[in-house]
């Protein structure tokens, strides 16, 4: 991958130019699905765009010093990390990539939640600090499962290159890994059974409590891009390999859409759990699951 293709992938496809409208669409699908599940009609199609533009036009409270500078920076870092993660996804067949891009993708997927933790603490709001502490605890809990699932997939296929992983035929182990990733996604996207960090009506808006205007717009955008990146990762791993370009794009969007729908329905059907229940869920139930996946991957590798 040279600089031109890297820039093209970051800025045009599947990066910002493609991912931002898809992010808004997914945010709308989430709200609409929850509304339909509750017997409501829900927001109009363009609602995330209205919200984004409106937030751009709002004032921000004056911020000074290093803390103020950091508070302005965190949402921008989160947006660029999430956009970079989307840009790494091998949507197009034979789109290039490099050895180890899976590791970079995982790092970039993790960066927005790091930014959220830092943002909550640098806002010095008590609700922000509680939200950040919860996000930190949550990310320690789900990341073990998430990383083990990905490692098991990569180890069974002998590669850390996303495109090579996407092209290999699906094995039962890969489905196990995809399932483990799906279990982690509600926590990663702050969705309802595990929506602890931004628990609305409980700790106001968690780490976002002090954010307003364009900064909040950037957080919304980074959340949308995280949706695209996380569901796109599942779509990449689950999609059968096709050589036709438009079909590959269509398949990617359709599979991501299905994952978004599934997560929204789960979010609408469940209530928020307490932090200790959530952590216990990830450590006790899912960890066993993930360790099984890794050990069977290593076993398969020894056999082959």
């Amino acid at each position, binding site marked *: 991958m040279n600089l031109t293709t890297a820039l093209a992938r970051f800025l045009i496809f599947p990066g910002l130019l493609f991912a931002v409208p898809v992010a808004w669409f997914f945010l709308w699908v989430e*709200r609409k699905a929850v*509304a339909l599940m*509750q*017997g*409501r*009609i*829900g*927001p*109009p199609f*363009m*609602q995330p*765009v*209205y*919200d984004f*533009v*409106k937030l*751009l*036009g*709002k*004032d*921000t*409270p004056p911020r000074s010093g290093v803390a103020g500078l950091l508070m302005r920076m965190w949402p921008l870092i989160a947006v660029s990390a999430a956009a970079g993660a989307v840009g790494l996804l091998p949507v197009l067949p034979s789109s290039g990539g490099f050895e180890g891009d899976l590791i970079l993708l995982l790092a970039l997927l993790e960066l927005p939640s790091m930014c959220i933790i830092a943002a909550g603490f640098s806002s010095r709001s008590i*609700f922000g600090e509680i939200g950040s502490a919860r996000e930190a605890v949550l990310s320690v809990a789900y990341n073990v499962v998430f990383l083990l699932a990905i490692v098991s997939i990569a180890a069974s296929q002998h590669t850390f290159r996303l495109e090579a992983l996407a092209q290999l035929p699906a094995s039962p182990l890969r489905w196990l890994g995809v399932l483990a990733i799906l279990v982690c996604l509600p926590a990663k996207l702050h969705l309802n059974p595990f929506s602890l960090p931004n628990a*609305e*009506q409980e*700790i*106001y*808006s968690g780490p*976002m*409590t*002090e*954010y*307003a*205007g364009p900064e*909040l717009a950037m957080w919304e955008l980074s959340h949308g891009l995280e949706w695209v990146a996380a569901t796109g990762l599942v779509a990449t791993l689950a999609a059968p390999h096709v050589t036709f370009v438009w079909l590959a794009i269509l398949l990617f969007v359709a599979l991501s859409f299905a994952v978004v729908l599934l997560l929204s329905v789960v979010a609408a059907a469940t209530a928020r759990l307490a932090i200790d229940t959530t952590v216990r869920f990830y450590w006790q139930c899912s960890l066993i699951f993930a360790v099984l996946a890794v050990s069977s991957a290593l076993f398969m590798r020894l056999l082959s």
Partner: protein
Amino acid sequence: MNLWNRLMCYCRRRSPWLFHMNAGSCNGCDIELIASLTPRYDAEQLGVRLEGSPRHADILCITGPVTHNSVQAIKTVYGQVCGPKAVVAIGSCPATTNVFIDSRTVDGPLNKHIPVDVFVPGCPPRPDAIILGVAKAAEILANRAALKLPVEPVAMPLVGPGCGDACACAAATAPATVASAPVPAAREAQP
């Protein structure tokens, strides 16, 4: 108005985020405000979202007759809402202090302390009246921000089931230079 301003005005009208504040209310209006978000009334069709933090909000919804204890809190929260912003006083209490008039614990009405844009009378008002009031407030906010008018309210529109011609009433208070743009259809208040 240039294109960006028109787009901004359009989006501000369609995305009112609320912050709900209780200034000594009996909880009647609070229940009605929550009811306006439930499946029967579904204010989210107009882009309404109830936000947890005043920093995220555009419209401050205040219920209650404004007790002495709540005055400072109201001023603080009003300052925390980032501009452009609007204030909706829900119920008869913040408008007139209602049955608590002349009470020594009450320091109302609300517009003694902060500028109020829309009063929604009723004890409690119906959820459809509250939705109409929020839609009017979003329109007032968008027009005021587009024309860079001061925050002081032009007049006091009365919106609610007791007020026969609510739409005409609110339109009359909007600045005359602004062409009245269509508001997304809110359900009409039933008599």
